[in-house]
């Protein structure tokens, strides 16, 4: 792994420094954006501001409106009302100019199955008007960068899901866009591909591009994004750095894992008095999480109480809130980590992980 990556992705700090010291200009703006479909309001007065040269992670449960927002910024759909601009250009008034400066990779890889990897990228280069030579050179460069040189001459039909995803992503980078918009870029990728993707994204951001990234992986948002916006029911419900959001949720967490899921309710009752807020249990991993005010002594006290109540504990710890806690606190869902194999497979509703309150 190149040293830059090792350094770049240390936990808990944004991977890339924002380009330039003053972050005054907004590369992406949404104000009061509304988009209605026949039966749902996908965006319901959505607001967002992404500073130039930064990475914004857009998080939200399934159906929150992430893809709809992405499609508005990418000029693929027009909002019913409200205002949206990218690189200072109104997406409704001047979509052509917006398309000159963005690179998009949608939620589902939009690649041409019958063309080879090389042909797919070359086609995009031609449509960006890079010329024959320019398109060829850029396609080869990107294939190299995304570790697809060997597969360059094979048709996409023969690519694995992860390879497709990578090629689609490479397609978004053909023109070295000023503003990059990626809808779940690493869903379905293995660790190595994910690292390669992050690295490619990192290079682009380091050179001054802005990135809007939706993701199912809180870890990804935590590592990549300078700021995180949480969307639910078509509205922005939180916005800040990962640390700010964690602080917003506040305090620490006592987390205990039980031997037997049947004890969960009992454990919640036992731990409630030492908590700062309502303990939350999750069936699936037999865990109880208790918000606490300060770390001192609570761990011992909690384990002692459980022991007295005859509840067997497998693991116990005190930690700062994670983005997962933030997500849970804000949306009432756990973030969806179930989906591992990407494409086409919509993540299951989070019923298993629904907190038992």
């Amino acid at each position: 792994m190149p040293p830059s990556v090792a350094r770049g992705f240390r936990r808990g700090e944004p991977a890339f420094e924002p380009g330039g010291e003053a972050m005054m200009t907004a590369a992406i703006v949404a104000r009061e954006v509304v988009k209605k479909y026949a039966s749902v309001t996908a965006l319901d007065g959505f607001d967002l501001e992404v500073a130039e040269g930064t990475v914004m992670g857009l998080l939200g449960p399934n159906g929150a409106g992430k893809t709809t927002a992405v499609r508005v910024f990418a000029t693929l759909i027009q909002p019913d009302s409200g205002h949206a601009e990218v690189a200072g250009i109104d997406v409704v008034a001047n979509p052509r100019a917006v398309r000159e400066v963005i690179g998009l990779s949608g939620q589902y890889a939009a690649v041409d199955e019958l063309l080879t990897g090389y042909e797919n990228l070359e086609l995009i280069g031609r449509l960006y008007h890079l010329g024959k030579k320019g398109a060829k050179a850029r396609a080869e460069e990107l294939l190299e960068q995304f570790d697809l040189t060997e597969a360059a001459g094979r048709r996409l039909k023969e690519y694995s899901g992860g390879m497709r995803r990578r090629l689609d992503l490479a397609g978004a980078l053909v023109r070295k866009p000023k503003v990059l918009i990626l809808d779940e870029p690493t869903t379905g990728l293995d660790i190595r591909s994910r690292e390669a993707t992050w690295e490619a994204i990192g290079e682009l951001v380091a050179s001054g591009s802005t990135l809007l990234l939706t993701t199912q992986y809180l870890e990804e948002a935590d590592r990549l994004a300078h700021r995180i916006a949480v969307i639910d029911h078509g509205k922005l419900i939180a916005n800040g750095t990962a640390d700010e959001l964690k602080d917003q949720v506040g305090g620490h967490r006592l987390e205990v894992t039980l031997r037997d899921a049947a004890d969960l309710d009992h454990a919640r009752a036992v731990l409630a008095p030492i908590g700062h807020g309502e303990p939350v249990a999750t069936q699936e991993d037999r865990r109880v999480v208790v918000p606490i005010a300060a770390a001192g002594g609570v761990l011992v006290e909690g384990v002692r109480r459980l022991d007295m109540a005859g509840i067997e504990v497998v693991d116990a710890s005190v930690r700062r809130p994670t983005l997962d806690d933030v997500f849970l606190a804000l949306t009432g869902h756990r973030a969806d980590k179930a989906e591992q194999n990407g494409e086409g497979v919509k993540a299951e509703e989070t019923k298993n992980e629904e907190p038992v309150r």
Partner: protein
Amino acid sequence: MSAVGLAVGDGVVLAKRNLTRTLRVPDLMMSSLIMPIMSTLLFAYIFGSAIQVPGVSYTEFLLVGVFVQTVVFNSVITGSGLAEDIQKGIVDRFRSLPISPYSVLIGRTISDLANNVLSIVVMVVTGLLVGWRIDSSAGEAAAGFVLLLAFAYALSWVLAVVGLSVRAPEVVTNASFMIIMPLCFIANTYVSPEGFPAVLRVIAEWNPVSAVTQAVRELFGNTNPAFPPGDAWPLQNAILASFLWIVVMLVVFVPFATSRYRKAVAR
């Protein structure tokens, strides 16, 4: 670059992509290369020999019908190709690029035109092998091919509307054939409409396919006294009528397809 230059330039890039696909899909290869050859042979040998017309060659008369039918059938690809690209998100990817908004439709119709050229070439070669001849000047023959292709091109825009309205790619082909079958067969493609029941005869006489078929026969010198065109105006003035039909189809269906496209993609 001018707006038109851009639309055509991007359209050509996309048309090349479509053609590459066509050559790689066995189904499409079948319909644009093998079917035309088969139809030519079948019609020449089975019907050409079954129906004996004293003194003249029925094969010559038939083959122009086969040419027309083939290009009409080929236009189905326009609608199904568009529907498929939209469904697979490919059109969205294109739309996120700074291309002309017309280029997807232009690219599609250009590639289908090229596809028709391919079909016609193989049919002409096959036709010549089985004894079909053009009995007119080179200029008239060229005009015949241009007319055939121009009609096919205009028809692509009609079928584009079908593809963009129906949207589900599996349904598009069926829906298209519901339009195309009567167009092809309630016509003078293989027989003279003189013998049709009254209503069908009127439809056949005013069917654009009939005008085009008659016009191409005239331009190729393939008319046959055993199968008179009939007295209806479009058949008596087939070249003019074909030209008018093509203009009307383009004037109506290019804007119609464009607005359908806008609706279909902006969802």
